């Protein structure tokens, strides 16, 4: 039953960095020269792995290197990885918008790619005209579109605007219409890139539901790239984790997600270096990453010309929307004094024994002062991420929309004593 529909064999993709100009012309001529003499392309050998944050010596990088995997029919494969890991390059090759530098891919069935919603939408044309145009670009015939037309309009919920140019649409309507067309494609293999990141919550739910139907009801194969791990977890059975163009892990989605989170743990070590009295600050944790209810330590080193008496050190923690969640200093806690004699230099450690925050990205502002005024403020000084994990302290994931903070170790006790009395 489960037959293979995609098989990639050692596919690699090399890109040249920098701009196209005289320099690249010289390389092109060189390449022709080498081929003429029957030698291998000299620039294929020197590519480096693709780590965008490090400076490399070569102008050529491998966006993908020796990728091998297989996908069975009806499977939903989630492709994950950090920015620049090669996910989109892989999808581009699969959807034939570019070719691999080496290797080959074998495909059984028709592939439709959805790397962007509304490809080819023309702003001057009406919704109706755009449905036909976009549908045809995605590979549908006119006949198929006519058959699905009402369904698409209904799915998008834009019936009233169907004869208005799409440039007059709200951005939400535009996306709904575009996804509506894409969702009614009927290829054997669907390649989807991050298209769920648009639209409101209701629409996202609708889109996710549609994707689920596509695979489970119709038995079609879906390759899905997303940074939304909740969506990946609920949609996919199998996963593929890419990192710097290499496959780091592949297999059942749970294993892949675990590896993904662990790769983040190793990454976080953010430091603040300042010119003012707050010279240096960093986050110290027991592990190299932070999970809800882990211990979090903030270490700050200060140096001032004028010694400070009664040092006050405050922190404000903000979430990704810049909303302050916590704002505390040592005065708030029993007027605790750090020092009585003036100091011009020292290291202060703030220990939060159990950080009760939901998974997500957070920023810390630091305030250094004496008992009356602030001497130095370092806004946005430190960043940290509370990791999402499968080994959450709660048995299932909490709903983000309801929970802004994480309450650890809540107990539910049921007592039957009352009834007996």
């Amino acid at each position, binding site marked *: 039953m489960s*037959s*293979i529909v995609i*098989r990639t064999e050692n596919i690699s993709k090399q*890109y040249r960095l920098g701009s*196209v100009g005289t320099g*690249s*012309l010289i390389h*092109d001529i060189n390449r022709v020269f080498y081929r003429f003499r029957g030698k291998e392309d000299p620039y294929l050998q020197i590519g480096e792995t693709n780590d965008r944050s490090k400076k490399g010596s070569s102008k050529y990088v491998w966006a993908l290197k020796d990728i091998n995997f297989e996908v069975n029919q009806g499977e939903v494969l989630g492709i994950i990885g950090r920015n620049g890991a090669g996910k989109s390059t892989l999808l*581009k*090759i*699969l*959807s*034939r*918008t*570019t*070719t*691999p*530098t*080496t*290797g*080959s*891919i*074998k*495909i*059984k*069935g*028709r*592939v439709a*790619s959805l*790397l*962007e919603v509304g*490809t*080819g939408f*023309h702003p*001057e*044309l009406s919704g109706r*005209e755009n449905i*036909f*145009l976009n549908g*045809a*670009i*995605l*590979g549908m*015939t*006119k006949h198929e579109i006519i058959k699905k037309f009402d369904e698409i309009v209904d799915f998008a919920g834009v019936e009233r605007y169907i004869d208005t*140019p799409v440039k007059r649409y709200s951005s939400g309507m535009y996306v709904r219409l575009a996804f509506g067309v894409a969702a009614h494609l009927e290829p054997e293999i669907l390649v989807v890139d991050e298209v769920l990141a648009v639209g409101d919550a209701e629409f996202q739910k609708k889109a996710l539901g549609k994707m689920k139907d596509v695979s489970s009801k119709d038995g079609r194969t879906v390759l899905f790239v997303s940074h939304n791990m909740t969506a990946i977890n609920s949609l996919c059975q199998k996963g593929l984790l890419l990192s710097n163009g290499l496959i780091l892990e592949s297999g059942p989605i749970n294993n892949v997600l675990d590896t993904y989170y662990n790769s983040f743990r190793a990454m976080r070590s953010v430091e603040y270096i300042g010119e003012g009295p707050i010279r240096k600050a960093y986050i110290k944790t027991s592990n190299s990453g932070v999970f809800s209810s882990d211990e979090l330590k903030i270490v700050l080193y200060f140096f001032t010309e004028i010694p400070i008496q009664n040092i006050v050190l405050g922190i404000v923690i903000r979430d990704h929307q810049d909303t302050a969640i916590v704002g505390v200093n040592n005065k708030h806690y029993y007027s605790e004094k750090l020092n009585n004699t003036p100091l011009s230099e020292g290291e202060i450690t703030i220990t939060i024994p159990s950080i009760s925050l939901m998974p997500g990205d957070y920023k810390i502002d630091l305030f250094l002062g004496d008992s009356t005024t602030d001497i130095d403020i370092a806004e946005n000084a430190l960043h940290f991420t509370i990791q999402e994990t499968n080994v959450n302290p709660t048995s299932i994931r909490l709903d983000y929309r309801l929970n802004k903070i994480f309450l650890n170790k809540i107990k539910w006790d049921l007592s039957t004593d009352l009834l007996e009395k």
Partner: protein
Amino acid sequence: MNEANNKDYWDQVIKPKGKLLDLHIKEVWRYRDLMWLFVKRDFSAQYKQTILGPVWHFIQPIFTTIMFLFVFGKIANIPTDGIQPVLFYMSGITIWNYFSACLNATSNTFVANAGIFGKVYFPRLVLPLSVVLSNIIRFGIQFLLLLSVMIFYGLKNGSFYIGISWLLIPLLVLMMAGLGLGLGIIISALTTKYRDLTVLIGFAVQLLMYATPVAYPLSFIQDKSFAAWIEWNPLSPIVEAFRYALFGKGMLDYTGLLYSGGFICIILFIGMLIFSKVERSFMDTV
């Protein structure tokens, strides 16, 4: 999975290098609806939010004709082979416009559509073909204008030429389409990495018009020293033959047309060859 090792099991194999000439003609045919929709899009989007709408198709040839009438007819006093001057200029402009529109639009194929090409696959040849088609419609409109002007002068002078030579017109239009498409896709393929040619094409098409007997008859320059240059221009026999076909005056140069035809075949072949090579991975360099 034994069957998976079978070569015929797979519908599609993506490899770094394809066949030398792989135009996916079958696929182009499957995407014919898309081609037609592109034609419709080009056509209906162009004059949206204009008051005159498609009337604009008339205005350009009319004004160019008036301009030529003054500059070449009145100031330079160039004869028109015994053809009514307005008709002479307008016929030349109509067929020339078709060629230059095809060339200009197809030479932009890759760069202008990189946005779509980068996101979804369809046979790339669909786009330049749709450009040639939508320009045929535009040519048709301008040809109708030319016809009505011809009828106007015919009624005025009491003579109107219709002959067997009219049957040549579709062939000549096809030749213009072939040449415009062939040159256009060569340029579009060459400009994906180095854009130098884009700068050139802007004024080269304009200059080329003066090297083609659009504003003067070929007979006028026959005894000049540079005549050979104009005669070697594969466009010259087509424009001349177009006038012969319409008005029945002058001579039909069969050798010239054959030469043009051969030239077009070679250009089209080279064009397809380069196009099929570039279309596979131009996204990386565009």
